[in-house]
């Protein structure tokens, strides 16, 4: 077939051949880039998915953690209000108790205060390997990653603390002159 085409004088076989070659080169180049791109995408996708699966922590409340036995031994993330009297340094680790705080409260400072002083709120004993952080104090919000053991003790390997009541910008304090709280 190729021979038949090349015998026609108006076909300009040489240039057509080089054109085809050019196209082929371009096509092959694109194909390489495409495969390379897909490989990179697959590698990054694999990294992110496997990282997500191994790094994912369910963020649950103390009540939810204790209500479902399926959570025992599983790494989870919980938040609770620290009860100041219970903080004790024991060699390399510290123990303290946290109280359940409800999810999505409007005023974190207030709900921390309520939870830490409410004896009926669910409590959980926590141990943490490491130095006592500065912010670990009464009514602080502790955000912990770790596992619950069969004895109901939570072993934290990550401890984050927040004290919402302090150094927060807000509107004026009621004590500036009023007996009634300000309308905010």
């Amino acid at each position, binding site marked *: 077939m190729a021979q038949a085409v090349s015998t026609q004088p108006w076909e300009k076989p040489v240039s057509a051949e080089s054109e085809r070659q050019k196209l082929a080169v371009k096509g092959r180049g694109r194909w390489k880039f495409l495969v390379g791109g897909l490989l990179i995408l697959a590698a990054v996708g694999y990294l992110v998915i496997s*990282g997500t699966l191994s790094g994912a922590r369910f*963020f649950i409340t103390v009540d939810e953690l204790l209500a479902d036995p399926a959570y025992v031994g599983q790494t989870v993330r919980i938040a609770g209000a620290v009860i100041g009297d219970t903080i004790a340094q024991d060699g390399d680790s510290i123990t303290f108790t946290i109280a359940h705080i409800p999810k999505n409260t409007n005023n974190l400072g207030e709900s921390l205060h309520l939870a830490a002083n409410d004896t009926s709120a669910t409590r959980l004993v926590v141990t943490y390997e490491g130095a006592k952080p500065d912010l670990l104090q009464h009514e602080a919000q502790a955000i912990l990653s770790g596992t619950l053991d069969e004895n109901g003790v939570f072993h934290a390997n990550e401890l984050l603390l927040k004290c919402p009541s302090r150094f927060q910008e807000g509107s004026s304090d009621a004590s500036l002159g*009023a007996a009634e709280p300000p309308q905010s």
Partner: protein
Amino acid sequence: MLAEIGFVSVFLAFVAALYAVAAATYSGRIHSERLLLSARNAALATFPLLLIAALALWIALIRGDYQINYVRSVTDPQTPLFYRITALWGSQRGSILFWALLMSVFAFAALLSTWKSDRRLMPGVIAYTMAVLAFFLFLIIFLENPFERVWVRDLPSGEIGIVDSVLIPPDVRAPPEQRLVENSQGLNPLLRHFGMVVHPPMLYLGFVGFTIPFAFAMAALASGDLSTNWIKATRRWTLIAWLFLSLGLLLGGRWAYDVLGWGGYWGWDPVENAAFLPWLLGTAFLHSVMIQEKRGMLKVWNMFLIIGTFSAVIFATFATRSGLVDSVHSFARSSIGMPMFLFWAGITLISVALILWRRSRGELRDEHHNTGLLSRETMFVLNNVIFVALTAAIFWGSFGAPIFSELFLDSEITLGQEYFLQVTPPLFLALFILMGVAPVTAWGATSLARLGRTLLIPLVLTVAFVILLIVTGTSNLVALIGYGFVSMAGFVALYEIWRGAAARIRTHHENPLQATASLFTRNRRRYGGYIVHLGITILGIGVIGSTIFQTERQVTIQRGETIAVNDTYQMRYDNFTEAIAEDGRLMEISQITVFKNGNEVAQLRPRIDNFPDMPMTIAGAHSTLENDFYVLLIGWEEVNYSAATFRVYINPLINLVWLGGLILMLGTIISAWPNEIVPARVTKSIPAGIGATA
């Protein structure tokens, strides 16, 4: 009076910015030079106006005008002058004003320096920079006013009402001074650190700085001048923004290391990550614009990158301010959350729409297509892909997964540090490999054999370095692989500098010092870039060393006793004192002596500062290039301080992180340094002038 001056200035700046947006946009349409000039002058006026506003707040902070709520929330009578000045960015309201001030400074400088050379882009540049500024001024005026004062109103019932207002409302009186002072709060003790004082301004300068290339890119799209003019005009601005952003990130890390007392500098915290995202995209942008300048390729991609960078800047600002990092719910409750989200989404959508419009008209077509698989272009594209992948992965880990699960799965899933430690190292390693290979590849195509020949010397050096590490006792395989690839990038940078200098020595018969100096003056951008690569390499080695080989140990020591911390280091607990600092904090100070192989090397004083309601652990550290001996005071025997407990961290190579950071900055400054040869600008202004009069 100060509050009124400040508020009125902000308001006038807001009006000026809005006018500038409208006038600049309209002048572009009717080609009116006079209107454009008027728009420019309005834009320039925002800087002095905001300076007056900031000065008013500064004076209020220094004088202790506690009736202003912001002043009361960040200072108290004990606050020293230095922290009164820095209190301007000590909390949200003031820092938005500071942000706006810096934005107006950058706009002022950029408009003046490019006014003559890039006239055709000016309508768009003015409109975009001023729209961004106007949005922040809107936040100040309507939602987060730093000039708001507190007033007391006597109600008919005999009770007293509290009113927060900037201007004086009717029937009110100022609260008693005594009460105001009692209610004042000092600056958060955690923020009383040099790193924290300088870190926010640097970060803001970086953030604000990226607005300039972004505005120029959008101006290019709007005006139709899709040449590389916008890239050339903003190259230095991009580098300056990048420099400040890098400095801001490094200082933030240094602050965490010195103040937070956990022995590390980067915790993959969402707030840190939010500031890292624009850095990653900005770095990708810095690289990929080179391809457009040299080869006229990747036009659409570069536009997307600068939009992405700016979008990440706005995202970082609003995510950290609106409480989005805590949860979607606290974001919804924040007063500035929704407006900031709408602004972010709006500006991103408009920008993307502009690109798609120009692209559909076929105006963003690349000038070259054919390129070999093994070419500088491919390396740059790969570099970009990895940077964008890193950005996406970090975004997903810090914001994507938690928000997605909270909104759609009805449970909250967060990704811990494990996620980042698993996902990011391979990607960073890929970047270092590219950093090693890309500089020696040629534009267009390189053959594998030629690439191998040029890489031979750096490869030999790398292998020698790794063998040296093995001989000196490093046996961790992951660390060796990391050190190997990272150091190769540095050797390539050094080799390229050496090659350039050697060529000059041969052809110009200069001595080595002269040759290197003229290399750097002739091609600042390229060789400055290699210095940046060298800095990143050193930083990378520091990160690998301090991450993989950090050791920590808790010890309790009797007074006078010496114990061995590890095979090399011993420490002795000497003494314990209490002292009260000027600002009223009680300091509990331990004194220890550190020995290395039995020889005394340092005396450290790890201590605990008790601010009212807030203790702060201040580490003692003995820093050498080899490592940091970093000690925290944990506890002590109440009776006679006869024993104390310490937590000791040994952080190998951590000082290379800071040293690498310094080299990186030096390289960026070399790259951004203005050339003395001016004629380039004159030739550039001719087509721009024609464009303006047409």
